[in-house]
């Protein structure tokens, strides 16, 4: 029995909202954090972990699991949130963001159940994803590898080395998801160093490309269900998103790429997210 589409979308929307609440919870516990890029990715992560990825939270090292690599590792608050909601980690860990000896720091650490690679230095995840997808092919395993990149992260040239290799090997088992929130640490990506025409770049590198509204869970689900978009090619899903999505004062501003979070700000943010 498959669940009706309307129910699915409502379920995913509820998870995405909870991811955003948990992001704010974590960064409040840490005193500061990368709210912007965490909240822009929330809907994508909800659809991945509660619809698309074949994973076993109770058996995080299950060899056949789909792989998810958060190359834009600064969105680790969102990854921790979704891993807690999916049951990989204890929810109480969200309150230990940045804590001494916590596996839940600013950037993903492979020590934490469900985390596939230590990321955070940008431009690393796609090459690792290429290796994972090749590992699946060499060992005749069926898992799919998803790598989430920031649009600003695409400034790093190493991404394009990996993109070239993925196309050369026709890695249909690999999907790059670009969380295109248009803003990096110092300002708009287009003003820092322009990356457009982005879809054309991926196509020129041999990838099959789709563009969606990364906050429309119907579109997200359809796109994730459709990978690989073409046989014999890696898939690039460019998800147009809003940095800081869900909280008015954090949206669309580089100020909330990373920022301090006081109790007062936290209460205000949670108010907008329908929390207590």
């Amino acid at each position: 029995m498959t669940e009706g589409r309307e129910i699915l979308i409502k379920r995913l929307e509820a998870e995405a909202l909870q991811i955003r609440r948990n992001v704010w919870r974590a960064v409040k516990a840490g005193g500061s954090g990368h709210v912007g890029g965490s909240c822009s990715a929330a809907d994508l992560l909800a659809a991945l972990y509660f619809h698309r990825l074949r994973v076993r939270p109770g058996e995080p090292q299950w060899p056949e699991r789909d792989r998810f690599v958060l190359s834009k590792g600064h969105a680790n608050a969102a990854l921790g949130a979704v891993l807690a909601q999916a049951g990989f980690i204890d929810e109480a860990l969200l309150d230990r963001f940045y804590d001494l000896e916590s596996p839940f720091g600013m950037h993903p650490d492979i020590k934490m159940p469900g985390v596939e690679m230590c990321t955070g230095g940008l431009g690393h995840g796609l090459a690792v994803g290429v290796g994972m997808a090749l590992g699946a092919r060499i060992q005749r395993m069926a898992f799919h590898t998803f790598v989430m990149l920031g649009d600003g992260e695409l400034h790093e040239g190493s991404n394009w080395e990996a993109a070239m290799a993925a196309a050369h090997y026709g890695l249909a088992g690999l999907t790059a998801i670009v969380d295109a929130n248009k803003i990096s640490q110092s300002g708009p990506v287009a003003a820092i160093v322009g990356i457009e025409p982005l879809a054309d770049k991926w196509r020129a590198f041999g990838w099959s490309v789709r563009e969606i509204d990364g906050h429309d869970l119907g579109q997200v689900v359809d796109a994730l269900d459709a990978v690989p978009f073409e046989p014999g090619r890696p898939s690039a899903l460019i998800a147009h998103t809003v940095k800081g999505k869900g909280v008015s004062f954090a949206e669309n501003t580089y100020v909330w790429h990373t920022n301090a979070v006081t109790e007062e700000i936290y209460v205000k943010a949670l108010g907008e997210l329908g929390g207590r």
Partner: protein
Amino acid sequence: MTAVAASPPDWRARSANQTRLAFGQALLELAAGDPRVVVLSADTQDLLGIRSYIDRHADRFVEVGIAEQNAIGVAAGLATTGLRPYVCCYAPFITARSMEQVRNDVAYANQRVVMGAAASGISLGVAGGTHHALEDLALMRSLPRMTVIVPADVEEAYRATLATRDIDGPVYLRLGGRVDEPSVTPPGAPFRVGRAVELRPGDDVAVIACGALVEMAVRAADALRAEGIAARVLNMHTIKPLDREAVLAAAAETRGIVTAEEHHLTGGLGGAVAELLAVERPTRMRMVGMPDAFAMVGPTGRVRARYGMSAEAIAAACRDLIGASSPAPR
């Protein structure tokens, strides 16, 4: 379990006295005994002599092209799936250019990736500073979890490559370039990671050497013996983990230590020995290696000699250390 094949008899001939080619030959033996072995090239198929491997194991070979950062990232990704990647690479590029990938994706993420790093030191002497690797040991040695091995000749390069079977973490295996390296280790000698090999006994002075300088150290010791100086020679093929016992014993049983390596005098073998001795047993030392300069262009042997990487310079350092006078010119 698949039985490990006996070493093919023809590997020595195919290695042509170059450690980089011994690595490629040893990969054949490793792959025959372990289906998890996968080999990566960054357009380095001939540099590491892996055409035979590719012929036999095309399904376990990945060419990434001239893209060293990608080579390391892809290798780390392969390792996460349970494979055992061997990256064929140029020492100067895989360390300096890919340092962040080696640090984050391999060492920090604790992935078992083995780098076979050819063209180290000034083994491509004529190629100039862009292609010399005189800081690679310092870079790799500074990474937690990294095992750093510098074979002295083809025999040891072959054995060391096989020995990576039993290393669970990341490995940097430093290899030479397109120059023949004279043999100095006994054929068939066992290779134990982290355990120095004494090639000459002696209690007057100890020479602790690695790589191409081991053979020079042996020649230096033989020359000194004729002058009545007993120089112990230790082949310190593993820079990390360092054989502390062997170093401390040499410090205790001789009048001083000379280190010899084809690397900057900062951060390499000499640095590792000095760090240990400064804390555990302050000892008089001399260090033979590359001074704080970019090496000039030239044939490898002559460039080495110009910067004091020679048997004569090692012998002179030994005499200087123990206050012996130079032999009268013949």
